[in-house]
C-alpha cells in the first residue's frame, strides 16, 4: 500500500492571531504543522509499522511557500519516507488559495507523479481556513470512496473499516477496496514527538519541489473574501458577593431564571 499524506503549514494553534488590513497578520507569527495533518501523518506511520498493512512508502505533500520544507521535515522526522513540495506564495488560509485549487493540485500530483497511490490521508480540516473541503473534494475528483472524520481505521481484507465521528455518535463505514481518501479527526491517535535521531535522518530524505503554476490549474479563488474581523471581545466576568446577588444577576441581567 502506498500512502500520500497531506501536510499543511498553518499558524501555530497556540498563537493569538491579530487581524490587519489584509486579513490575519502572518508576519513573524509562529507557523507549525496543522494538528489534524499531524494526526494523519501519525496514522500513516502507524500503518507502516503494522506489518499486516504492507505499506511500501509514505509520501508527504505540502502546498505553500518555501518554508513548507520545514513542515515536510517534521513529517519526515515522524516517519514519512519522501516529501513533495508544491511551491506557491499564494496564501493558503482561504485568502488566496482555496480548497478547490488545492484538491485539484492533489489530483494532479496523484495522476502525474504518484500514480500508484492507494490511500490519501489528510487532516479533517486546517485550523486557519477551517474548511474541511480538500478530503471530500479530492475523493470527488478522483471518483474514489471517502471516509471523513476518522476516529479509528482498521484493515479489512482488501479495504478498510473506518469509524467516523458525527454529531450523533460514531458511524462505521466500510471501504471495500482501495484506493480511497480518508480525513482524520482528533480521536484517531496521539501523534508522536519527532525524536532527534529521526530528525537527523529526515535531513537526508528526498523532497521534490514543483511549481504550482506548472500544473495548468486555475489557482484563482472561487470565493471572494469580503471582510475579516475579530470576534467581539468577551465581556469580563464579575465576582458576586453572595448567593442573593447571584440570583439577582441570573434573574434580572442574564434573564435565565424566572
Amino acid at each position, binding site marked *: 500500500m502506498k500512502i500520500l499524506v497531506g501536510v499543511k503549514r498553518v499558524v*501555530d*494553534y*497556540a498563537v*493569538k492571531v491579530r487581524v490587519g488590513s489584509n486579513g490575519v497578520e502572518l508576519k513573524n507569527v509562529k507557523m507549525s504543522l496543522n494538528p489534524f495533518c499531524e494526526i494523519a501523518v501519525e496514522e500513516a506511520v502507524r500503518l507502516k509499522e503494522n506489518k499486516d498493512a504492507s505499506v511500501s512508502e509514505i509520501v508527504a505533500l505540502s502546498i505553500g511557500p518555501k*518554508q513548507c520544507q520545514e513542515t515536510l521535515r517534521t513529517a519526515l522526522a515522524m516517519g514519512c519516507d519522501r516529501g513533495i513540495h508544491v511551491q506557491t506564495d499564494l496564501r493558503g488560509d482561504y485568502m488566496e488559495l482555496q480548497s478547490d485549487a488545492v484538491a485539484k493540485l492533489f489530483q494532479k500530483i496523484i495522476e502525474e507523479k504518484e500514480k500508484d497511490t492507494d490511500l490519501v490521508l489528510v487532516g479533517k480540516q486546517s485550523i486557519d481556513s477551517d474548511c474541511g473541503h480538500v478530503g471530500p473534494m479530492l475523493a470527488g475528483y478522483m471518483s474514489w470512496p471517502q471516509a471523513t472524520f476518522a476516529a479509528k481505521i482498521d484493515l479489512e481484507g482488501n479495504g478498510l473499516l473506518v469509524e467516523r465521528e458525527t454529531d450523533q455518535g460514531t458511524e462505521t463505514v466500510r471501504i471495500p477496496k482501495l484506493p480511497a481518501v480518508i480525513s482524520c479527526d482528533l480521536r484517531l491517535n496521539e501523534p508522536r514527538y519527532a*525524536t*532527534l535521531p529521526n*530528525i537527523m535522518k529526515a535531513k537526508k530524505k528526498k523532497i521534490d519541489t514543483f511549481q504550482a503554476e506548472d500544473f495548468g490549474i486555475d489557482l484563482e479563488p472561487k470565493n471572494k473574501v469580503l471582510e475579516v474581523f475579530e470576534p467581539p471581545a468577551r465581556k469580563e466576568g464579575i465576582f458576586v458577593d453572595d448567593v442573593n446577588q447571584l440570583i439577582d444577576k441570573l434573574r434580572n441581567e442574564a434573564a435565565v431564571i424566572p
Partner: protein
Amino acid sequence: MYSCPFPTNRFTSTSCAIINIVRRRLASTSLRSPTAKDFQELSKRIEKVITTDNSQTLLKYNSDWTGHYQGRSRVVCQPKSTEEVASILKYCNEEKIGVVPQAGNTGVVGGSVPIHDEVILSLERLDGIFSFDDENGILTCGSGCVLQNLQDKVAAWGHLMPIDLGAKGSCQIGGNVSTNAGGQYYYRFGSIHANIIGMEVVLPDGSILDLMSKIQKDNTGYDLKHLFVGAEGTLGVITKVAIRCPRLPAARNVAFLGCESFDMVRKTLICAKEELGEILAAFEFMDEQILDHVGNKKKIPMKRVDRNYQFCILVETQGSNGEHDLAKLESFLEKSLTSGNIVDGIVAQDMKQVNEMWEIRESCNPIIREIGYNYKYDVSLSLSDYYDIAEEMRKRLATKPEAIVVNWGHVIDGNLHLNIVTPGVFSVDEQVKELIEPFIFESVVRRGGSISAEHGLGQCKNNYLGKYAKTEDAVKVMKSLKKIFDPNGIMNPGKFLPSDE
C-alpha cells in the same frame, strides 16, 4: 496535617516543652497579640478586613503551600490602595502588632504565613495594571497582580515578563519582588534586581516611599529599591512596581534531551552555550528519580521511546528569527548527539509540544508534594559539585531506604532543587531530618555554595543565616538596617533574620 511551625534547626525535638519555650520567647519581644478591638480599629481604617473566629475561613491565609507551616492569625486585611496599606502599618506600628505581608502565598520557606497570630496583610486587591510603555518595555502595576495575568497582558502588547516560575498561576509580582524570585529565565533575563525599574513601598511607620521610575539608568544616590528586593517583607510593604519586560521572541524552540551521566549534562551545557550563544534562554535538568514519579502522573515523551536516561534536560531558545534559531539548534543537537553527550532527544514541533515539555518540568514540585512529606532544599553550587551533593545525600540516607532523594533544577544557574520525600508518609520523620540537617548545609558551605539559592529564608532557614550563609559582621549590618526601617520589629517578625535568642 499540623506540623511544628517553629524553626527546628538544631532543636530536633518537637516536644511541647520546647514549643512553649520558643512561644514564650517570641512573646517576650515587644509585640503583642491583636485583639477584637484592634480588628475594629482596622475595619475603621480600611474597607475589607476578614476576621472570624471560624478558622476555616482564614485557613488558606494561615497555611503555607508546603503544608509545613501553620499560622494562627484571626485577621486578614485586604487593602485596595497604598493609602490603606499605610493606614494598616501606621496603626500596627503604633500598637506594636506584628504584620505578615502576603502575596500569592506560594513560598516554600514559610515566609508568607504568620508564626503566631500576626495580622495578615494581603496584597491581592492591589491588582491594578497602571501603564505599559511598549517602546521601553516598562510595566507599572500593583504588587498584587498575579504573574500569569501579567504575562498574558504583556504578551498581548508584544512583551514577556522577565521571570517565569511554576507558581505563576498564583504567585503575585509583589511576592516575586520581595523574594527576588529566580525561575527558569534567570540566565536569559537576569534577576529581579536587573529588571526592577522602580517601586512604591510603604514603610513600617506608615510613610510612603516613592521610588517609582520610568527609566532604566539612574545613578543618583543609594539605590534603595534593591534593599526591598529579596527582603521578604521585613522592611516594608511593596505596593507598586515598575518592571522591565523583554520583547516577545519571534521564535521559541524547546528540546527535551536524555543524558547518561551528569558529566554529560555539563558537557551538553557547555555545547549549548557555544552553539546556541545568545539565543539560549533556559537549560533545566531532572534526574531519573524525579522523572519516575512525574512519569506516573504525566507522559514523559522520551519514555515512549523505551529507553530510560539518568538525566533529562529541557533546553529552550528564544530569538528574533525562526530560521536562524532552528539552524543553531540543529547544529547544537547534531554536535551533542554525535559526540555522545546526549543519547536521545525530541524537539517540540509546535507550541502545544513546547507547553507539554515545560509542564513536565513544572510539575516536579507539585507532584512530589502529593507523594509524601517533602524535605525541601534549594542550593547553589558550582557545576563541578552540583550533583555530588545529591549522591552524597543518597549515601547518607542509605539506612533509611524509605526516604528517596529526587532532584531537578536550573542547572544553568548552578541551582539545584534537592528534595527528599518519604512516599506514603506525610509526617516528618525526625531520624531522617537528623540525617539531613545540618549535614546538607555543612556540605554546601564546604563547597562554597549557598544554602538557599532562590527560595529565601522565611522561617525555615533564617536561623542559619549567621552560621551557614553570611559572616557575623554581615549579619550585624543587616540587623542594623532592619532597626533603621523597622525599630519596633513589626514586619514579618521571627523571619528572614535570625530570631533573637
